[in-house]
């Protein structure tokens, strides 16, 4: 519990700091007034329409991707499972691009559903391809299948976009994972889905813990494995799909944070899931704003920052944490 409080206060403090970082010089008192006594001045508009949505988006994307990763690692029993590596993010992004290009009259809310569908199909497909053959879904085969699927989907995306130059321009930043310029409506649009997903993950954390012990143990204690795998898959698609629809495919949060959470909180998912949610929010928020503070004149998509931070961790996992393969 103490750990949760520390993490939550770290998220709040970082969010407050993120409110004052930026090209216009706005102090905390001004931020307070902008939020509670809005008077329409330029600074207040910057706070409410630029910084607040960006911070909320970072928190939501981080929390949902980290929890999605934790669930995937529990269900597949595989330390390398995460929405980025297994192509779930890429699938959701591809579905959104398809919808942008081919479904002109889709209402803004529809894209979230398209992203859910893309995430679900991609996750299922990669898992199915990766579990073909001897030994089922080994980390190696899953990682290879995910890498190949992502390459395939991004090639498809590029081929489609060659025909549609206007769409290219509007999604270039989004397609590498970016939190910049999200309108508030966009963030609030995915909020209910993310909250539902997080709540469901917390609610079912007992069953998820059982699954994380492995298929044999889960069957022995009488768990309906097929049912709970489908439930967790749906939660993952909901969380990852919403995050991608809002902020584009941000990788590695879903890989790194669950491992850290298990190091901090043990292997009981009733604690791992809340710690992952807060940790993911903190990581994305920090990653996004550190770069904003260091290079104020550049827009560096947070997806790139996460890959630079997360890939060394992946290498560490592959080197040290894969039992049975070393």
């Amino acid at each position, binding site marked *: 519990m103490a750990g949760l409080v520390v993490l939550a206060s770290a998220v709040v403090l970082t969010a407050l700091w993120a409110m004052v970082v930026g090209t216009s010089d706005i102090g905390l008192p001004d931020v307070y007034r902008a939020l509670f006594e809005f008077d329409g001045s330029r600074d207040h508009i910057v706070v409410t329409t630029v910084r607040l949505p960006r911070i909320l988006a970072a928190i939501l994307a981080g929390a949902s991707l980290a929890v999605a990763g934790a669930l995937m690692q529990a269900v597949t029993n595989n330390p*390398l499972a995460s929405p980025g590596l297994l192509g779930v993010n890429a699938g959701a992004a591809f579905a959104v691009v398809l919808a942008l290009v081919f479904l002109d009259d889709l209402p803004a809310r529809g894209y979230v559903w398209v992203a859910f569908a893309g995430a679900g199909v991609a996750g299922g497909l990669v898992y199915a*391809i*990766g579990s*073909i*053959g*001897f*030994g089922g879904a*080994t*980390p*190696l*085969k899953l*990682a*290879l*299948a995910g*890498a*190949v*699927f992502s*390459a*395939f989907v991004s*090639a*498809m995306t*590029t*081929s489609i976009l*060659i*025909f549609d130059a206007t769409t290219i321009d509007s999604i270039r930043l989004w397609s*590498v994972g970016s939190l910049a310029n999200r309108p508030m409506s966009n963030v609030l649009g995915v909020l209910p889905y993310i909250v539902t997903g997080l709540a469901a993950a917390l609610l079912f954390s007992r069953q998820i813990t059982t699954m994380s012990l492995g298929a044999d143990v889960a069957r022995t204690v009488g768990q309906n494995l097929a049912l709970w795998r489908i439930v967790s898959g749906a939660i993952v698609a909901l969380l990852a799909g919403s995050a991608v629809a809002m902020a584009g495919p941000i*990788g590695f949060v879903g890989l790194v944070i669950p491992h850290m959470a298990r190091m901090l909180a043990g292997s009981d998912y009733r604690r791992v899931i809340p710690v992952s949610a807060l940790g993911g929010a903190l990581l994305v928020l920090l990653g996004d704003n550190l770069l904003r503070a260091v290079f104020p004149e*550049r*827009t*560096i*998509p947070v*997806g*790139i920052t996460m*890959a*630079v931070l997360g*890939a*060394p961790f*992946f*290498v560490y996992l*592959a*080197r040290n944490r*894969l039992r049975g*393969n*070393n």
Partner: protein
Amino acid sequence: MIRTVTIFATAIAVLSLTGLMLGDQQIAVPQIAAAVFKPDESDAVTLMIVREFRLPRIVLAAIVGAALAVAGSVSQTVMRNPLAEPGLLGINSGAALAALLVIVFFERSDPALVSFSAFAGALGMAALIYVLSWRSGASSIRIILIGIGLSSMAGAASSFISLFGDLTTVQSAQTWLAGSVWNANWDKVHVLAVWLLPAFIMVLLAHRELDLMSFDDMSASGLGMRVQAARAAMVLLCSLISAAAVAAAGLIGFVGLIAPHIARRLTGHRHCRVLPAAALVGASLLLGADLVGRTVIAPAQLPAGLMIVLIGAPFFAFLLWKRRNARI
């Protein structure tokens, strides 16, 4: 073997000829023959199209395809994993990262310099993958996983660098990175040939060592091979070949995955046969991909790299399915 060589050599000839004929300006066979063999007798426009645009592009595509296929055969043998190829292992993205650094920060793009930096990048990446996966010997599973991790890191670093470059430089660099042979010229072909010829010869000379390595480490060292040294040397050669291909044509994946498989299906497992066959298959694959990519939606062009991925990724799934009863 002879049948395989005949089939693929014919395929290369037909694809090259079609490539010379088709395009915005259709050119008939007699005119092509005239432009190639009797340059004095044909008109200037045809001469330029054939000799300065289409011919170098075709030659470049063939050489790059062959190089990627040979690099793929070597890495599949060395990693003893039929799914390993330089593109998946991150060697190509290391090469691309280094080349991008030179292009963006020094604003130089002459083929020789880019080749050198790409080679440095590929070698650095290969060394890094090897060092990081070394725990009393380098297991091929660790090499592949660490390669995937480092590859996404290098990809992110490339995007990061391109944020700092001048917009036009970055745009041209990204077209190149997407994997395409559209801006081929004879300079590139020369540099590529000079790089690749010694490397090809060395790989061919090492065909017996490669045969040995495709068994397990125990058998190979039991037969008197210094396995770790030989593996390191092969990784070096493989990086050299990949780097040259990346410097010339950007990131083209999956040729190194597909071509060696087709070659092995047709000629068996001995490397003195697999390597030349894979080179021919790779050359015809990339020639075909480039031809389709630039004619099917003309005047727009799909980069050859994209076409190959669209064929290659399903092929990968098929391979996994075929090998479902084998241990990976």
